[in-house]
């Protein structure tokens, strides 16, 4: 509530200031006359005018784009000397000091085509001090990295390490941590050209423990976006926000990956990449059309073969994108209209050749076909003080997971076919049958965003006020899990068909407000960005404790730049603090019901005419109505130093989430009858027994189901560092050193239940143990990446040497004593577990006795590897690149606490690619 009050206060100040603004301006104009700055942007070589170039006056945060004639004009500038940035897609950005103490009109700026023959080529991720730790990767760095998908970019973040992505399983996001976890992956927001990607309505998992052939975790529900599906081509720039993001971004806990794709004229680009287990082809082109519009088209295809010996296991991805942009003049300002249409299709195939080599019917395939479209409209007032941006995006996907098998039972097996609760007469399954199991999802997602930006001046310094709203709608129209209950493929699981269409839609509404202020005091520059975001799920049934609740995310980022000292030593400090909220997904809120079947009479007589099977089915709704969004609290601080061309970025952070999503097991008892057939003689009866004629005893048994809880805790601490050295002119090389120290603690909170799954004297074990200790572990790692990028202008070649050093890796299980805090008996009564129970042999099954080494820290020694990348421009049109990772790997053998000696072998992996620009 207090936070809301602060926000309201800010609103008042801003509106007051806004009212004052005009009068201040008038006062200013009578004292100091503002200047105008206008000019033209051209291609240096051809003299061609460059429209849609951007002109930015850094200190004023003023920007404009050139019109169709390549012209720009900025008015009402306070006379001073400023830093000017001019950039255009495909060209090298120009940064220069410009004297605007008087009017400057007709100023000509010439830009050079991006090429390896340029002086300045940046191939690493730049630390952008945009008031929050952000890594920016631009086109040149992307080309040099030779990515196959977006997952490869994470290698460039501080603490990142080169990996050969395995496309046979989901590529999960790992951010600022050792290892990875589902909540970080779920909590990372991916935005492509202002359209967010979401996986929240995906429920493609055949339930009942039916894992796929290899047991590989191919299922992506509730784990965030599968990065395999995002192509790395057509991208102009990627910003990965690791720190506290602006309140404009919501429904996230960890970070933001913002992808800006190319728009505007681009030459025909063909890219072909080949690697030990996958191949990729891409083609794209962009045209500038008349009336200030442009059209960009791109397509790519990726094929991955996990095991070269097995051609039946493959992953394929095809994407297609068409993007249109038009700018023009509207009312007293300019507008930009952007729209795109994307198609992504993936196909995951596997064939079971374990036992049934000859049978064609044993197959697995998982396909995903998605269309994503967006239309966006942005209007900016002529004086650049007000902008309104609206974006409406929608996606529709058809996901199909199909398994077929010729089932041949291992012996007589009962069948469970009731979809209602209660007792019923069932049958035994036929000895062999053909089975098909399909999971069909059709998630639909809509997203609307409206953002208002107001720039104004306060005491001559630029300020910004932002407000807006997000609305999202998600639903799934798929048929869900579909199969014939009389011929089930997963007959061991006892699951039933269920439809996704029955699951309610999820509607989320959020509002946000943010103020960006700049303050100058004796040449110290203070920047503060403070805001709040408020959101909720709409129309949620009152049964949920979350219903009608608003969740508030306050966020603040402050930076302080000291005045530039006389020996060009720049230093600035920054800090950020904020909350991020991620709403539960469809499978958290609406898990499907579970079926439990108990045999009450199993009379499998040797005479088929006498067989009788009676089942009692119980249905359980495993919904946790207390589920709430997971929330992450971030705090970070850092320092940026620059001296001449040497820069150092050092960030210290702590992120803590104690209510992440995880699943936990619940036990419940089912009461049923056990019919006694001993009173009838199978050799005498002529028809199957009827339960009404039989005696029975009342029995009960424990069953389990798992459901989602907010019990996962992730505590991330770390220090990230990025050092960029001035160019070593003699070696024509840039040296950069980056890395991180991360310490991550993973934990599962709450009480856990466990019943030993044994049979003792004909009965199941009578007690359930209740445990409430930590079951997580802590991982720690320190690594450094030293990059030497040698740029040989004359031969147009960049040769990068990357030395990756992992100084240490440590893992330790969080200690607990293994003793339950209570136990539950057959009647469901809960009793404390004390010394009497500890000494009673009946309870020894409930006490966890850990091996003496279980809590010992597991350390691995230093690991050093050398990776190389080469990019060579053959002529203006053709560029080839080649990389080899683990060229040299130093991995000494080491001893584990139990005395085993581990020897690591890393084989080098390499790839090559060809880039053609026509």
């Amino acid at each position, binding site marked *: 509530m207090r936070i809301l009050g602060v926000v309201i206060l800010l609103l008042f100040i801003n509106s007051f200031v806004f009212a004052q603004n005009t009068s201040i301006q008038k006062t200013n104009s009578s004292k100091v006359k503002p200047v105008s700055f206008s000019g033209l942007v051209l291609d240096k070589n051809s003299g061609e005018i460059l429209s849609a170039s951007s002109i930015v006056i850094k200190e004023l945060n003023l920007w404009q784009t050139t019109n169709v004639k390549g012209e720009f004009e900025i008015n009402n500038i306070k006379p001073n000397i400023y830093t000017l940035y001019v950039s255009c897609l495909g060209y090298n950005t120009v940064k220069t000091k410009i004297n605007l103490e008087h009017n400057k009109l007709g100023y000509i700026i010439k830009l050079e085509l991006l090429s390896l023959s340029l002086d300045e080529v940046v191939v690493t991720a730049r630390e952008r001090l945009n008031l929050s730790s952000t890594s920016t990767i631009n086109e040149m760095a992307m080309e040099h990295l030779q990515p196959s998908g977006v997952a490869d970019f994470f290698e460039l973040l501080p603490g990142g390490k080169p990996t050969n992505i395995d496309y046979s399983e989901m590529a999960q996001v790992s951010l600022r941590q050792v290892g990875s976890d589902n909540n970080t992956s779920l909590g990372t927001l991916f935005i492509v050209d202002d359209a967010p990607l979401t996986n929240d309505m995906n429920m493609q998992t055949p339930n009942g423990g039916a894992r796929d052939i290899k047991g590989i975790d191919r299922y992506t529900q509730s784990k965030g976006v599968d990065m395999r599906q995002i192509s790395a081509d057509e991208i102009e720039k990627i910003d990965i926000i690791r720190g506290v993001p602006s309140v404009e971004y919501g429904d996230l806990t960890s970070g933001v990956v913002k992808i800006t794709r190319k728009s505007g004229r681009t030459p025909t680009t063909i890219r072909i990449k080949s690697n030990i287990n996958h191949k990729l082809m891409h083609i794209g082109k962009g045209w500038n059309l008349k009336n200030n519009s442009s059209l960009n088209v791109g397509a790519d295809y990726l094929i991955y073969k996990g095991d070269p010996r097995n051609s039946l296991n493959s992953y394929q991805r095809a994407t297609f994108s068409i993007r249109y942009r038009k700018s023009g003049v509207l009312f007293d300002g300019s507008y930009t209209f952007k729209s795109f249409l994307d198609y992504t299709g993936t196909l995951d195939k596997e064939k079971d050749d374990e*036992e*049934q080599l*000859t049978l064609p019917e044993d197959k697995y395939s998982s396909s995903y076909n998605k269309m994503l479209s967006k239309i966006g409209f942005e209007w900016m007032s002529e004086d650049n003080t007000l902008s309104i941006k609206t974006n409406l995006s929608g996606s529709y996907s058809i996901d199909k997971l199909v398994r077929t098998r*010729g089932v*041949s*039972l*291992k*012996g*007589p*097996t*009962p069948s*469970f076919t009731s979809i209602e609760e209660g007792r019923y007469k069932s049958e*035994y399954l036929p*000895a*062999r049958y053909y089975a098909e199991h399909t999971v069909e999802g059709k998630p639909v997602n809509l997203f609307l965003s409206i953002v208002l930006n107001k720039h104004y001046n306060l005491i001559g310094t630029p300020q910004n006020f932002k407000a807006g709203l997000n609305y999202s709608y998600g639903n799934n129209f798929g048929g869900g899990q579909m199969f014939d209950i009389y011929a089930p493929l997963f007959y*061991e699981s*006892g699951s039933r068909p269920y439809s996704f269409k029955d699951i309610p839609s999820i509607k989320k509404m959020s509002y946000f407000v943010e103020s960006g202020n700049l303050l100058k005091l004796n040449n110290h520059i203070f920047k503060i960005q403070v805001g709040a975001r408020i959101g909720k799920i709409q129309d949620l049934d009152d049964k949920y404790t979350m219903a009608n609740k608003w969740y508030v995310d306050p966020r603040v980022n402050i930076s302080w730049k000291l005045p530039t000292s006389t020996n060009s030593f720049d230093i600035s400090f920054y800090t950020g603090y904020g909350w991020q909220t991620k709403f539960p997904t469809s499978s958290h809120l609406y898990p499907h019901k579970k079926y439990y*079947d108990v*045999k009450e009479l*199993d*009379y*499998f*007589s*040797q005479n088929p005419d006498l067989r009788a099977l009676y089942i009692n089915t119980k249905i359980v709704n495993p919904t946790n109505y207390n589920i709430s969004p997971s929330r992450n609290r971030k705090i970070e601080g850092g320092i940026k130093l620059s001296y001449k061309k040497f820069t150092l970025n050092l960030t210290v952070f702590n992120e803590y989430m104690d209510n992440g999503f995880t699943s936990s097991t619940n036990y419940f008892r089912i009461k049923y009858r056990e019919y006694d*057939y001993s009173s*009838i003689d*199978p*050799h005498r009866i002529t028809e199957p027994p009827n339960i009404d004629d039989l005696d029975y005893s009342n029995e009960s048994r424990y069953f389990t189901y798992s459901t989602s809880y907010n019990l996962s805790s992730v505590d991330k601490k770390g220090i990230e560092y990025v050092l960029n050295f001035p160019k070593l002119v003699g070696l024509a090389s840039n040296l950069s050193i980056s890395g991180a120290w991360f310490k991550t603690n993973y934990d599962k909170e709450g009480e856990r239940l466990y019943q030993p*799954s*044994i*049979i*003792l*004297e*004909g009965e*199941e074990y009578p007690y359930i143990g209740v445990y409430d200790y930590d079951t997580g572990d802590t991982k720690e790692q320190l690594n450094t990446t030293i990059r030497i990028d040698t740029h040989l202008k004359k031969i147009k070649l960049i040769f990068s040497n990357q030395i990756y050093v992992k100084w240490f890796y440590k893992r330790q299980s969080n200690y607990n004593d293994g003793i339950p805090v209570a136990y539950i008996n057959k009647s469901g009564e809960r009793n404390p577990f004390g010394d009497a129970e500890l000494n009673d*042999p009946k309870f*020894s*099954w409930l*006490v*966890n*006795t*850990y*091996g*003496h*080494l*279980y809590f*010992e820290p597991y350390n691995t020694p230093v690991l050093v590897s050398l990776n190389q990348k080469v990019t060579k421009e053959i002529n203006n049109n053709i560029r080839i690149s080649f990389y080899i990772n683990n060229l040299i790997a130093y991995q000494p053998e080491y001893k*584990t*606490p*139990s005395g085993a000696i581990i020897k690591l072998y890393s084989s080098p992996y390499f790839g090559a690619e060809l880039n053609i620009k026509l």
Partner: protein
Amino acid sequence: MRKINLLLVFGLIITLFSCDKDEEITPQTKVTIQISVPDGIESMDEISITLKDVNTGTQRVVSTEADGTAIITVDEGVYNIIASGEKEHTTDVGGESFTRTVSLAGLKENKSIEGETMNIDLSLFIVIKSKGWVFKELYYTGSRTPEDKSYYKDKYFEIYNNSNEVLYADGISLAESDHGTYKEENEWTTILGEPTYVAHTIYTIPGSGKEHAVNPGESVILCDVGINHKEVNANSFDLSKADFEWYDEHKLDVDVPEVPNLIKNFSYSKSIWTPHNRGYRSYILFRAEGTMEDFLINNEVQRSNASGSRITIRYKVPSNLILDAVEVSTPSKFVSKAVPVGLDISYTHTGDSDDIRYGKCVRRKVLRWDGTRAILTDTNNSAEDFESTVTPNPGKI
């Protein structure tokens, strides 16, 4: 004078002759006994042979020479000849050699010894330690359907009354070993200090003590599902005459009412039990003294992994309770024993190959016939006692 000397000499001679005629002389026979020893025994010397006169009870003892012969001269008569001794015995299976000391015995009853010389052959055998009940067939591999798909609910164990009196099957337990014979080391031996059989599954034949009588030469079949599996799988077997079945109260098992159920006294899993189909685990028959509840409490054992998180609780079976034990493994994977050496020195198997083992079992060999009753061989050496990889023949010899 000369007349008296002659008289004395005549008297002496007469006396001498008289003495001769009074003495009775028993005829003696020089007996050469040639022993023969079973395969796997190298030496034949130092075997002690006792000849006991049936009528007088006198005993004469002689030891064999290196060539297995013993020469002794005894009075003619009717004797019981008993040989006994201890020798090193070696057996080879799957490329491994197992050596132990065995007790040998040989017996010839009521042998009439007469004549000047006599040759007697005596063949020795290794002492049987059977208590009456033995495994006759172990069928643990399961079969394949005519479409070559897996079918494993037709497994069974056939146990046999190898004695000459009526025995009762009540309370006999079938157990599968926790240790797998392919593992480097039997951790239980290290934990408990000496080789001990530890079970992870125990199924017991019900009954108060005298309910299930089994005649000499008859067998009891314990199976998974007691039906005629040929109806569903032509490559399987007819178990409709099985005596007991192990029924797991689980979705994937069925209860055949015509075949009584075993008591599931312990299983490490709540799910269905099926014997390991490669034969990596060993089986025993035992009978608990007292109640099963007491047996379980008294014989609980635990092991844990140095870096593991949960202990494993199982149950040991003291050797003196074990009626019969069979070590099962595969020639290429056998490394360590689950059964103490005294109970089974070696192991039996159904081969290494994937396809050949299906639909095959191991069967105890017949030692000899007593009329229509077969006496099965049991020298606690399953490599020798069992035929490997043969077609199951439940209920028949």
